[in-house]
């Protein structure tokens, strides 16, 4: 897994609540056996019309929104457990997703792929959307080490939560398999001491 470094980037605003994983990547694109190349299908049905033509006002089709941070409405990533959603976002070149609330499975999938979910307050999120809708796109700085997100050209910043274990993994590029394999002896001991086995 790639190490997560501090990023400063244009925010790609998607001010819609409850964006589900079927919108992030529709099921018809899940019929492959590799993890690569999903970026071109990211938000496929919001990004292209029925004739495969780009929908010009969708954020990913607007040249001024060229960045590495996706900012979405509350409850981002709800629905299916498909990790293809996180793969598609990463493959598109996005390094962090900012929202006021994330669905659980999406959050875990993102973290397992070096994609940082940053949960901010409703008011901070609104501020990003407000600036994005005005003259020029908002620029965000995300500092994982200090767990801080700031809105460039303003004095606004916030701290965000991440559990200590996952933070270490993100910063160092470790994944859960590495850690679990180191526990083999403890897992076998657990199995040997069970009173009820299935």
């Amino acid at each position, binding site marked *: 897994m790639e190490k997560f470094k501090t990023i400063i980037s244009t925010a790609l605003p998607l001010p819609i609540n409850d964006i*589900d994983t*079927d919108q992030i990547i529709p099921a018809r694109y899940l019929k492959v056996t590799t993890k690569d190349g999903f970026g071109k299908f990211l938000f496929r049905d919001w990004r292209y019309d029925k004739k495969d033509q780009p929908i010009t006002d969708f954020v990913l089709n607007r040249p001024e929104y060229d960045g590495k941070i996706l900012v979405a409405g509350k409850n981002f990533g709800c629905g299916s457990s498909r990790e293809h959603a996180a793969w598609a976002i990463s493959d598109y070149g996005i390094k962090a997703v900012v929202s006021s609330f994330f669905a659980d499975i999406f959050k875990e999938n993102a973290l397992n792929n070096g994609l940082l979910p940053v949960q901010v307050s409703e008011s901070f999120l609104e501020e990003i959307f407000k600036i994005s809708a005005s003259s020029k796109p908002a620029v965000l700085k995300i500092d994982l080490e200090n767990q801080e997100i700031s809105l460039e050209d303003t004095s606004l910043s916030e701290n965000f939560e991440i559990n200590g274990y996952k933070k270490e993994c993100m910063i160092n590029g470790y994944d859960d398999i590495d850690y679990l394999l180191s526990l083999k002896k403890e897992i076998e001991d657990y199995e040997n001491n069970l009173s009820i086995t299935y």
Partner: protein
Amino acid sequence: MAKTLFDKVWDKHVVKQIPGGVNVLYIDLHLIHEVTSPQAFAELETRNLPIFRKEKMVATADHNVPTINQHLEIKEELSRFQVEKLGENCKKHDITYYGLGHEYQGIVHVIGPELGLTLPGKTIVCGDSHTSTHGAFGAIAFGIGTSQVAQVMASQCLIQTKPKTMRITVDGKLSKGVLSKDIILHIISTLGVASGTGYFIEYAGSAIQSLSMEGRMTICNMSIEMGARGGMIAPDETTFEYIKGKKFAPNGSDLDDIIKYWKTLTTDNDAVFDKEHHFDAADISPMLTYGTNPGMGVKIDGKIPLAASGENEKSHKKALDYMHLKGGDSLLGKTINHVFIGSCTNSRIEDLREVANYVKGKKKAENVSALIVPGSKQIEQIAKKEGLDTIFKEAGFSLREPGCSACLAMNEDKVPNGEYCVSTSNRNFEGRQGPGSRTILASPLVAAATAIAGKIIDVRNS
């Protein structure tokens, strides 16, 4: 200390607590299917790792399989490749695989319970969010991503933060025409699609206890539509009776012994939940959804809300635009051309019996195409044995072979662009049943009535 049902099962599976608030959780059963497993097998191969406990894995093909002519080669190339890959991977790693044509093949969340693999007190995972279904047996069951599928393959464990607990109590007697699907749609439309995020739910109360295992599975299945990783119901005599005689379930004195343990899997009287909700069964009517998430639901004779409050206003408008519906209107009388009865929510034998009971001697409306997709090969066989296939045929319904089908439209079973479908599945997201499709979620009874009438009717008056 007093414990909830969830705590009892969770605590028994903690291998280790890691600083930073996370647990290493042992997994008793790992179900896999063709769509979310290939990249996990590849991950193990890249790292040159073996499967740690292959005997705790069971595979089936369900998500993208055709529902006609399953004995022939799959026509669609990508689907065929994915299904073949699963077969190859299972063969290579010696994992039990119920592929197309096998008597136990079916939707992963349907076959687990009917084979007696799903049991009280187990931890169960699968790379599919509706794994919550298995919680109906008092198991901790939840969906995982593909990286986590690889983790379980490699170590039989997962690294998890312990969720908060929520109890939803439904007391009282259900009214005529109200099924378990209506209970869960009512709950989600009341509490909202993110109300369960961060929680594990226990469903309790007399209305829940009165349900069959099939009904309980429908409720637990849709826990994820509230954002909850899982939902569970304390095992009781109904549970034990269901398990008895199932292929891989304990039997004889083993079963008697383990039932003694299963009987301890209840929430202690003085246990405290992080959140509690109460519902009165008498307030629940047959339900329909009008929007593009499962929380956008109304009573069958209710009106589509005019507007949502504050932050949800934009989503409400976007949903109604997509659905081509108007706030303030009723869905009663709406012409419907497609009916889908199936999915891990409502494709069990009880659902098929419910539909057969309603459509027996009737004929579907001419404008409707009505698809019935059983959850498993075993259910298909029972349906045929009971003569339900004849009833469906005479009513003009198409009874197919098992799979996920039009629930997520990965195979050929799609709802055309702009058309409405009354569906017994679990998600009404934009494009879920095919690009541009408009899904209205409902119970099998409402779906059956819609197919006969060709439009939405109040099933209580029919």
